């Protein structure tokens, strides 16, 4: 069975500060890793994914995540956040189609 733990339920930061949202997973088999984002009053959107190859993956809006197999982590980072990054972020693993999600991290960016 797979499980995902997001270590922080809420992360408040100031605009232009760096941020890291932590995610650890547990799985007995190889999995694919994802970060989804839910902006206020919207549905879930895929932010980035790790399927294979380079362990560092990037999104179009400046986020990046690094797959660390030895630490079973897939932390999400951004060097400088914007107000518009305020949202809830979900880490997930996929195995045989089914996604297993973490509890979510609410990122609040303050001016």
């Amino acid at each position, binding site marked *: 069975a797979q499980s995902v733990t997001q270590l922080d339920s809420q992360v408040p930061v100031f605009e232009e500060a760096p941020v890291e949202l932590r995610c650890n997973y547990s799985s007995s088999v190889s999995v694919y890793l994802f970060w989804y984002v839910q902006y206020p009053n919207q549905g879930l*959107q895929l932010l980035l994914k790790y399927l294979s190859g380079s362990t560092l993956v990037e999104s179009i809006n400046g986020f990046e995540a690094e797959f660390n197999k030895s630490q079973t982590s897939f932390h999400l980072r951004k060097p400088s956040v914007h107000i518009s990054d305020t949202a809830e972020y979900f880490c997930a693993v996929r195995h045989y189609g089914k*996604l297993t999600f973490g509890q979510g991290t609410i990122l609040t960016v303050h001016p």
Partner: protein
Amino acid sequence: EAGVTQFPSHSVIEKGQTVTLRCDPISGHDNLYWYRRVMGKEIKFLLHFVKESKQDESGMPNNRFLAERTGGTYSTLKVQPAELEDSGVYFCASSQVVWQPPRAPYEQYFGPGTRLTVT
């Protein structure tokens, strides 16, 4: 091209009533998934359709929940009778198995969700 749509966006019903949620996947997507997020908890998998067949229904909580996908297009999720603990947001997602740019294969695209409140 339209994304995944869900109806209704909100539903408030009394305990013991019946509610039917609908999901229209992206056209041509054979895979359809239902997920649920109960308040304060993580998003949990309910079931997976491949076309009209149930591939995996291991996440369905009990027999008060019935999912159908007649004809392999839209899907419905019926809760009968509804209980207080059924309150939450129900998400639907769809994916395809072939490369159809700009959408990647096996990537799940989510609808906006249906917020169900049972009073």
